[in-house]
């Protein structure tokens, strides 16, 4: 197995890959819920980045990275709740969650 210069590079690349996958999902799928799934993937990739940096780089205060990640988890959960509430509400009005059909503000 090829190794990286440090373990940190490996974790950062995994996080970048996950971020790109999440972005691809958010940009290419038709269903609104999958966009939210993509957003959750991106937030998780950012969290992995934070924790990897916390572990492998020296810093004067040892707690910042961990606390940042914990707050990020909390905020992401709140955002997922509101986003999914919005999707449910849109479905109730438009009877579909297909993003290609939601073009009433176009033109």
């Amino acid at each position: 197995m090829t190794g990286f210069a440090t373990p940190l590079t490996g974790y950062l690349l995994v996080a970048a890959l996950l971020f790109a996958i999440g972005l691809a999902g958010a940009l290419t799928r038709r269903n609104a819920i999958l966009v939210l799934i993509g957003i959750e993937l991106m937030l998780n990739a950012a969290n992995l980045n934070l924790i990897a940096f916390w572990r492998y780089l020296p810093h004067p205060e040892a707690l910042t990275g961990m606390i940042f990640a914990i707050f990020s988890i909390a905020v992401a959960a709140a955002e997922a709740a509101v986003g999914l509430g919005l999707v449910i509400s849109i479905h109730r009005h438009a009877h579909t969650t297909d993003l290609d059909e939601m073009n009433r503000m176009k033109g």
Partner: protein
Amino acid sequence: MSFVFWLLAAITVAGGLAAVLLKNLVHCALALTVVFAGLALLFLQLDAQFAGFAQILVYVGAVAILVVFAILLTRSSETPKDGGVFSRTWGAGLAISAAVFAVLGWVVLQSEAGLPREINVPNVTVLQIGNALMGRYVLPLEIVALLLTAALIGAVIVAMHEKGDAK
């Protein structure tokens, strides 16, 4: 690079790919749960115990269930109609995300952070986290509490049946 890291990374990335590629939405949600669990295990491998357990508790225990409920309440779990699951502009989306990955990968491989250096594990106990949350980070804690309350009330109001609705 240890075997455990490669295994966990493979599981997480495979789960992520499944989450955005599968046709059946509930399978996507379950693949997302696998991603969350894989990430929690990666956190545990990085000696971030509190973050790993919080990840399972919040993401697997709550956000995954939320996504599943939303899928079922919007009847998106039935098989998709004609037209496929990808939107008309999927090419542009794929190109953009490939470009983002290329830039990020180049930055990571090029940066100084990847140079080998002395690593000592930061020893963070739950007691220290508690003290920090109540001491130095009490303002962000209170703001996040306010945000969560607002999100709770907002989600309920947004998703509530309005009076006089047809349903």
